[in-house]
């Protein structure tokens, strides 16, 4: 196969004969800005966790009230950090899998600029309380329109690159990214535009279709695309089974979208729709187990590599969290389980395991892998990278586990209506203290990660990557 390197890796010298040299400007811009937002929004995350422990903290300043910071935290992490990081890695992976340069670096750079404009607009509008009132779709309409424009620019660039590819057979990551691009278009339009034409339960149903599939059909497929690329690459081991990856992909395409109504179990929505959502939620185990089995089987005999490789540590922990979070999901869509855990703190525990523990871990792994190549320098500090892993891992576990326990306990108490509501609030205070300190650990990990990336990008260390 043809050798492929990033322009930065040639260090200005003439490139080796016959090698394909990638420009990678777009990937670099997306990755740097996503890492910056990860850090900035991380501060907000710690602040809202603190507000659960000290509810009067900065409580008299309207734009720092919980109800305005929380959507900024969610949107900032989802779109400013994770989606931008995933897009950046897509700009890195796709040209390499296709054996051609990115179709247009200019268009890519314009997309990066537009994306940053959208995120800054989101910060201002959410802090002033300009909020549309739908979860995950809080951003005002003009920003929604810009997101659509940016997505078309992104999609066009990636599809044009794929259509010019040199290798006919498409590796599984390519399907997942194509799936992400087309599904996102529909999912995003449903959640941000179709909802305008509906009210009440009907609108809520569209809203949950979007919320659920923002994770299921946006972050899941692009996250898996990264994992399918990075696990074999970081461990120098071929993927265990192409067939199994097909099973995972096509079942994901079919099953995921049906499950939105499981956010309304026991709620004011038709029982039959709840039952459908539950049935398909359980079927989600198929695509999940297919992917997880494939990853584990790929690593068979290679587990010792985890000791040396930070990307592999993040990747395989992410796979384990993926297995866990996607076991929880189907289970608590069941009516009996839902009656206990729904609306409790269990749910943020679950959501953070998906978005932080799984998909952010995949993205972090991808960035640790790509950054030395993108800038043609060795990573600033391997030791610091290792520390960032342990901070996020311990902080993450503290966060997930305490919220599950706390949430379960809370739901248990709610089901005994002789306990006054406020007692169930007070009972959770120790949980929120632990959550706050776990959040601080995660944040320390983020700082180490962000510093490491920026120091590599800007730093003077000139040794080439290995």
């Amino acid at each position, binding site marked *: 196969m043809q050798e492929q390197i990033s322009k930065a890796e040639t260090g200005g010298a003439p490139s080796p004969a016959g090698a394909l040299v990638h420009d990678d400007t777009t990937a670099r811009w997306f990755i740097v800005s996503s890492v910056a937002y990860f850090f900035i929004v991380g501060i907000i995350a710690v602040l809202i966790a603190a507000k659960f422990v000290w509810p009067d903290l900065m409580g*008299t300043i309207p734009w720092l009230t919980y109800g305005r910071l929380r959507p900024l935290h969610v949107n900032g992490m989802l779109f400013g950090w994770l989606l931008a990081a995933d897009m950046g890695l897509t700009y890195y992976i796709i040209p390499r899998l296709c054996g051609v340069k990115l179709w247009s670096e200019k268009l890519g750079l314009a997309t990066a600029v537009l994306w940053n404009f959208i995120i800054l607009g989101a910060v201002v509008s959410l802090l002033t309380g300009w909020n549309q009132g739908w979860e995950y779709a809080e951003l005002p309409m003009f920003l929604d329109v810009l997101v659509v424009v940016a997505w078309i620019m992104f999609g066009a660039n990636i599809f044009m690159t794929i259509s010019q590819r040199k290798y006919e057979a498409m590796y599984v990551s390519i399907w997942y990214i194509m799936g992400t691009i087309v599904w996102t278009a529909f999912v995003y339009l449903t959640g941000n535009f179709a909802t305008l034409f509906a009210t009440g339960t009907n609108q809520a149903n569209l809203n949950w279709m979007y919320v659920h599939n923002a994770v299921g*059909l946006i972050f899941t497929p692009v996250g898996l695309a990264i994992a399918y690329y990075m696990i074999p690459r970081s461990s120098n081991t071929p993927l265990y089974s192409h067939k199994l990856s097909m099973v995972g992909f096509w079942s994901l395409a079919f099953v995921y979208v049906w499950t939105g109504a499981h956010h309304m179990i026991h709620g004011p929505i038709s029982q039959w729709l709840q039952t459908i959502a539950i049935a398909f939620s359980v079927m989600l185990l198929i695509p999940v187990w297919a992917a997880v089995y494939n990853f584990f089987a790929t690593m068979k005999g290679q587990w010792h590599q985890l000791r040396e490789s930070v990307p592999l540590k993040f990747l395989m922990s992410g796979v384990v969290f993926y297995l866990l979070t996607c076991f929880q999901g189907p289970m608590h869509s069941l009516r009996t389980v839902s009656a206990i855990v729904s609306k409790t703190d269990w749910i943020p525990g679950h959501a953070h395991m998906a978005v932080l523990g799984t998909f952010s871990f995949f993205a972090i792994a991808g960035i640790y892998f790509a950054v030395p190549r993108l800038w043609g320098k060795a990573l600033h500090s391997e030791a610091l990278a290792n520390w960032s892993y342990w901070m996020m891992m311990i902080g993450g576990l503290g966060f997930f586990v305490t919220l599950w326990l706390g949430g379960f306990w809370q739901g248990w108490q709610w089901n005994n209506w002789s306990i006054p509501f406020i007692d169930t609030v007070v009972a959770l205070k120790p949980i929120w203290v632990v959550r706050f300190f776990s959040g601080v650990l995660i944040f320390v990990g983020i700082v180490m990660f962000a510093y490491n990336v920026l120091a590599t990008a800007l730093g003077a260390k000139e040794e080439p990557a290995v």
Partner: protein
Amino acid sequence: MLKKADNNALWAVIASLVLFLIGGLLTTVVPPLVDTSWSKPFENTDPAKGPTGKLVKLNAQQLQGRAIYIREGCWYCHTQQVRTLLADTKRYGWRGVDAPISTPDEFVNDSPHMFGTKRTGPDLARVGGKYDEQWHRTHFRNPRDLVKGSVMPPYPWIVNNPVEFQALVAYLQTLGRAKDWRPANDYEK
């Protein structure tokens, strides 16, 4: 058939879109057509069928209050749905009367919907008439003055703005009132 998608990008895209759209359409477009109660406003005059009453549209002041509720993100901590669980009907009832279960026909005027996902605070679906204006004033100024141990944020900028404060309370007092569920008619103003 799906093997073809291995080498043919267009084919892969079409196949994944078709598979997606089956569920996509059946779970979004079809349900409101099947279940018409999603769009028919609540109205009942027959006590034998449960609480009587009629869903009325919010007036301008109540709508302003609703906009404040959205702006301040009250809905990240409060749900508005009494679920089909005994625990909900008991807990969100008051003075010995169980709260009626929330039904889709009570929410047909709501946009954006405020069902919510998280109960950091109690459900507010039937809070209309539970407390008087003075209670809300004290509570919004600092919830901990009334309820020790509360983690609800203080809202001095709402209380100090009489127009906003009254609008918000006016909105809260409408919640759950389409169904006339208190036999003694003992709603607070």
